[in-house]
């Protein structure tokens, strides 16, 4: 049996490191705000403390403390709301928006990460209490590794293959391979698209993938992630060159076109592969009884 000080310390350290690891700064441009980092680290510290002190509270046993801890955990619900509000308000002045589906996904992930931090702190503190701090040194990293794996959802690269495609004009109608995209009336815009645009076809592996790519929210997420790296030659009030994704309704593949600042086809294809499949867009309806009946 360890002293409660050691148990709590083990839990807090493991939980806080877990939050830090999960708060990676990545190419999706979120969170890029230093104040956002501090907010999430502070909340992560509180979450880790809650998980860590739960073990002494239970073993004592101090049920009043346990009840208060349960009440405190409810506060993390606010995080989802906070993220949603922040991202939605930033969205209003973006040329290329994330879309509500992506924002909802991000907000949910941020809330869930705090519960995982509580779990890591709880398990590490529990191990330290039962078997000593030496074993907590093993349990902590294992929990951190486990939660990191748990948080990595599937990506577009796992549900679809991506291939480069030709951009062409049928009169004023812009087409990517055989998918009609939009009518471009200005000749200058047509010339620019012909000389600078990149286009790809995204072929889903199965019907589930097709349903996922059909979701407008998922398409907005793909376009947002791609433009956050490659940029797009779009300005306020000049939206002819806005990136766009349209589906071939009969053949089921998605055509995407973009006029990027950095024309690099390999990066474009790699970025699309790495776009997360959004929870709201992920389809599993065809696995249900009636879904299987419909698909056969």
């Amino acid at each position: 049996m360890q002293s409660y000080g050691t148990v709590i310390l083990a839990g807090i350290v493991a939980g806080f490191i877990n939050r830090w690891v999960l708060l990676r700064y990545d190419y999706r441009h979120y969170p890029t705000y230093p104040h956002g980092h501090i907010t999430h680290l502070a909340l992560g510290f509180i979450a880790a403390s809650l998980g860590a002190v739960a073990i002494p509270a239970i073993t004592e046993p101090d049920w009043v403390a346990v009840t208060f801890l349960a009440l405190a955990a409810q506060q993390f619900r606010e995080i989802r709301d906070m993220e949603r509000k922040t991202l939605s308000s930033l969205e209003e002045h973006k040329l290329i928006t994330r879309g509500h589906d992506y924002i909802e996904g991000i907000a949910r992930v941020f809330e869930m990460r705090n519960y995982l931090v509580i779990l890591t702190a709880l398990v590490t503190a529990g191990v330290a209490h039962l078997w000593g701090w030496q074993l907590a040194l093993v349990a902590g990293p294992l929990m951190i590794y486990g939660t990191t794996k748990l948080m990595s959802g599937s990506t577009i690269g796992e549900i679809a293959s991506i291939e480069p495609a030709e951009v062409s004009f049928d009169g004023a109608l812009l087409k990517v391979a055989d998918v009609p995209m939009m009518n471009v009336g200005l000749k200058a815009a047509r010339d620019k698209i012909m000389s600078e645009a990149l286009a790809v076809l995204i072929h889903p592996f199965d019907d589930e993938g097709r349903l996922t790519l059909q979701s407008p929210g998922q398409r907005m997420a793909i376009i947002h992630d791609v433009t956050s790296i490659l940029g797009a030659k779009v300005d306020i009030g000049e939206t002819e060159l806005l990136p766009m994704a349209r589906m071939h309704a009969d053949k089921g593949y998605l055509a995407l076109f973009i006029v990027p600042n950095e024309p690099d086809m390999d990066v474009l294809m790699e970025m699309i592969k790495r776009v997360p499949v959004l929870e709201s867009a992920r389809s599993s309806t065809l696995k249900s009884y009636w879904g299987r009946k419909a698909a056969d």
Partner: protein
Amino acid sequence: MAIVTQDPGLVQGCGCPVFVANESGQQKRLVLMLARILGGNVHDLENGVFIICKH
């Protein structure tokens, strides 16, 4: 938001302004001006009529 044509007979009964151009060069210039002023997208109906829309 606006329609630009060389032949007014091609556009009927619409609720938005119709601009009539004398020749192709003037029409293209008019289309570009209106698109930038109104902040809309230009679409070519391929019958000599251009429409400017807000999406």
